């Protein structure tokens, strides 16, 4: 494991020095993540999209999917699914989604806004 390699670099140091250097470099942020978790079906489906599209809409070279209305998104996904719109990647992705999932996904994506801080 790479972890082992990195540790080897400092193997000659004493444990104390390691502890000092590691501790000094660590900052533990104590987060208050008490807001409502975003883990519903739409968010889980949108996680698929986030592997290629930014969910803050700031894409370059990849078409943005944020800022579109629900109907347009659903129509686009159905067009990719049927092959009416050409894209081998989107064809494979949309084929794996049921019509119900496409509806949920479109609903969720249309609720996001540019710069929304989502994964």
């Amino acid at each position: 494991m790479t972890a082992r390699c990195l540790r080897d670099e400092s193997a000659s140091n004493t444990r104390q020095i390691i502890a000092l250097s590691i501790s000094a470099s660590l900052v533990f942020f104590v987060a208050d993540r008490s807001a409502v978790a975003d883990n519903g079906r739409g968010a889980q489906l949108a996680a698929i999209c986030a592997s290629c599209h930014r969910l803050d809409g700031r894409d370059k070279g990849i078409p943005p999917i944020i800022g579109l209305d629900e109907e347009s998104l659903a129509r686009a996904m159905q067009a990719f699914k049927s092959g009416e719109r050409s894209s081998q990647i989107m064809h494979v992705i949309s084929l794996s989604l049921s019509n119900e999932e496409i509806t949920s996904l479109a609903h969720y994506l249309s609720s996001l806004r540019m710069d929304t801080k989502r994964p």
Partner: protein
Amino acid sequence: MKCWTRRKIGCFAGATCLAALVPRVARSKVSARVVVIGGGAGGATVAKYLAASATMIEVTLIEPKPRYTTCFFSNLYLAGLRSLESLTHGYETLAQRYGVNVVHDSVKAINPGGKTVALESGAKLPYDRVVLAPGIAFKYGSIEGYDETATQTMPHAWNAGPQTRLLRQQLESMEDGGVFVVVAPPDPFRCPPGPYERASLVAYYFKQYKPRAKILILDAKDSFFEQDLFQDAWNRHYPGMIEWLPAQFTGGVKAVDLKGLSVKTASETFPAAVANIIPPQMAGELAQQVGLADQSGWCPVDPITFESKLQPGIHVVGDATLGGEMPKSAFGANSQAKACAFAIAAALTGAERAAPHLFNTCFTVLAADDAVSDAISFTPSDGTIKISDILISTVGESAEIRRQAVRQANGWYAAFTHDLFG
């Protein structure tokens, strides 16, 4: 739900007490603890999505390196098309925006009975679930003379960083007319198109600066992924520069000579000006230590939750898994990691669990203006993962389609690394 608010209400840094290395998050609100080990594509994704989707779970990410250089796209660095810095990412956003406790340390041991992770620094982290994303380890010794020390003479450059930089330096120092030997590993290995993309992009560099140089690929296999696409590109872009020798012609690579700089197969010895040895692979070292790998060297997992079939309560994602028909890729690791994160959130908090979807998409760059892609969907089936649909670029596509794929590849890299670290 649009976005959550996050309030930094305190921080800790100190050297007086190692026990304090255990992350301190608002204890009263924590209902479960998950420790994620390994900060690559799989581990970073699990940590981020778990922290984002399950606010009552305290997520700790253990990764020794302060910054991560992606193996994907590192062939573009070898070609001179990207800087290594542009492929290097930090963990600040995971900590500051998502509240992941990022601990830069190494794991000494995992105690599944006591449900604790022991760090080299001495800290012990309790967990309800632990996720390993240990990546790959190399089977040193399977090629005679090739051990960890040998990587300083003949780099593998299959973990990005210093090894990649060393290989680039060697290629830059190589005299025009020299032979660059690439040893390609047997299946399964990280990034199936990787060795051949590397040959393509080093050829791109040679074509500009060392046009008399040659590239020889000594393969452990008799065929390789997207072979027709690669060989078509080699004929079009780099005629006569790249030669591929399958195992059936050479009998396979048997040994390396570090002093004489040569690679020995069963039938012949090949001198090399620069040699890139990509050894046979297995699941990362920690997975082997913890007993997560079976006789194959890889980790069998449930294809829906990615929980180990050998050690309950421990999940494994990414290259280390025995992933059925899923290739070992960063995209695949990211896809598995999301399925794993949502499954853990559901198990620990009762959150809704939608049906998992697994995908792999890969952009392969053949020249500065020529890239191809593939897209594959997968379905968990009979305890393993099987391909549902697959589409791959074809030979004969227009130059504009290939140029467009290069633009998409760069856009994908930006979005994908944002998904991991941003």
